[in-house]
């Protein structure tokens, strides 16, 4: 189990002259909840499709649960919820799941209990014998989620899983992700809702123009702090000395702001200020939200499109 659930090395995809993905290199260890973030058109869905064997990479390689990309064997324990889940709408929900189970090669023993359990888990227990075409958009998305959980996959891809869901549905997705984490399942989550990514993911990668530009853990210890100070003097010498405690020092009205790497920097800073006889009137430190980081890393300009 030491090998990663998912690995990509230099995956590229060109559509004609346009490069949708320039360089996708990442590794997702087993059991991790991994968030894949980026603006629209950054190549997130194409990347996901390359990993799932739906799109053939122009170059590069990768492995899915130990099998080379594109090898059906690698998909035996993979669940996938596409952004817009579509299936043969004339089937009843339970029939649809039954067909998917057969395509996964699941044993018939205990299958019906598994299927009704999944329908109940996504809140569709009463609607199992209704045709999918009579489902609302949110119900279809829930059914798609049930489908992605068939056969207890080891790796689940969720492409914008909360799109089309009401707050209850979004909460369901969040709970399901938590349960998957508890069961040791790896989750690859593609989402725009950064507040949700923040509460569910262990690690995220930011994608811009078809490249992974930054990867980081969401865990508290590893994220920079944004520090806000108000001092009684801001001479160039003081500023230069303060800048050594962190980076991106800037003046903002009466306040000074800077980024520091760990909270142990804060007492160091106050001790230094006291030693220099500089008056400290205000000090506040907080972790920037994922949204702020997103805007910082991706840049406002990329948000259109």
């Amino acid at each position: 189990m030491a090998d990663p659930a998912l690995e990509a090395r230099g995956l590229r995809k060109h559509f004609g002259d346009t490069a949708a993905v320039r360089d996708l290199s990442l590794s997702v260890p087993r059991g991790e909840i991994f968030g894949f973030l980026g603006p629209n058109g950054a190549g997130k869905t194409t990347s996901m499709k390359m990993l799932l064997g739906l799109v053939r990479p122009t170059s590069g390689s990768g492995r899915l649960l130990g099998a080379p990309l594109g090898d059906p064997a690698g998909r035996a324990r993979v669940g996938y919820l596409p952004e817009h889940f579509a299936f043969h709408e004339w089937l009843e929900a339970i029939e649809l799941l039954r067909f998917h189970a057969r395509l996964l090669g699941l044993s018939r023993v205990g299958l019906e209990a598994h299927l009704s359990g999944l329908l109940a888990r996504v809140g569709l227990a009463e609607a199992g014998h209704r045709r999918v075409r009579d489902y609302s958009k949110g119900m279809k998305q829930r059914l798609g989620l049930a489908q992605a959980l068939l056969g207890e996959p080891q790796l689940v891809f969720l492409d914008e899983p909360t799109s089309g869901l009401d707050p209850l549905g979004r909460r369901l997705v969040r709970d399901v992700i938590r349960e998957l984490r508890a069961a040791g399942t790896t989750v690859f989550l593609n989402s725009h809702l950064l507040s949700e990514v923040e509460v569910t993911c262990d690690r995220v990668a930011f994608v811009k123009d078809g490249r992974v530009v930054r990867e980081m853990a969401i865990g508290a210890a590893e994220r920079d702090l944004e520090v806000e100070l108000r001092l009684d003097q801001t001479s160039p010498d003081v500023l230069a000395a303060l800048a050594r405690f962190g980076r991106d020092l800037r003046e903002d009205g009466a306040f000074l702001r800077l980024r520091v790497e760990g909270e142990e920097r804060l007492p160091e800073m106050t001790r230094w200020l006291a030693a220099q006889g500089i008056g400290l009137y205000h000090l506040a430190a907080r972790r920037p939200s994922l949204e702020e980081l997103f805007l910082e890393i991706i840049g406002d300009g990329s948000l259109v499109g």
Partner: protein
Amino acid sequence: MGPSSVEAGGRAAARRPGILSAILTVAHLTFTDARRKRLLAAALALGAAFIAVFAIGLHFIARDARARMAPTQQGFTLGFVVMAALYAANFLIVMTSVLVAVDTLAGEIGSGVAEALCTKPISRAAVALGKWLGCWMLLAVYSLVLCGGVLLTARLVGRYTPPHAVAGVSLLLLEGTILLTLALAGGTRLSTVANGVTVFGLFGLAFIGGWVEQIGTMTTNPTARYLGISASLLVPSEALWQLAAHQMQPPIMRDINLTPFSPASVPSPAMVAWAVGYLLVALAAAVRLFDRRDL
């Protein structure tokens, strides 16, 4: 996860379906989907209406023929009416074969259904072959009901059975299968409507080619004849109908050679071998095109 999945813990040993099992599952799914969309019911209901019209018409024609015509003339008349019904059945089989397959890949690629299928641990070839098999089963049921209905009606109402009926119906099914396979292959790259226009266009090409060949033969113009034969090699549908028509008409019609069902230039039996080879190549192309397609 909840108690349900604890119950399903044995499922951890998930395995992949074999290729045959995957093909049969996709075929079953395709067939079920078409049945649910009432495609089969509509085809069979209209097919039954078609046979009813034919049966009533044949009843009166046969009654008058027996009352007023000499036996040779009677045979000719009944043979002609049955050929007309088979010609109409041929046309319906052609239409149905294209309509059944035109959307099965093209539509599902467009809607995203293909994504859900192709991320399962099965090969793209299994998906394409399963689709083909599901569509073919629909076509086979429809063709056999339609042709069987015509032949049974001819026998019961007109007390007439065309010669080589089994061989003839097999040729019609082969013709439909080729068009179905072309529509499946086209559907890997074209949208549903463009695909339908293309396959019917190819059918039209073969159709006019067949007529050019016949008239070229009658007027002994080798250029026209070879042009027609070339069109038949490109799309063998019309040649297969000509061959089937030649087989299933009474010898007297063949000898008079003046009805639209009596080809002046009978396609060579080698055309059947060509058509079978053509079918296999078209199916292989459909599988390969779908395998290379980004979804």
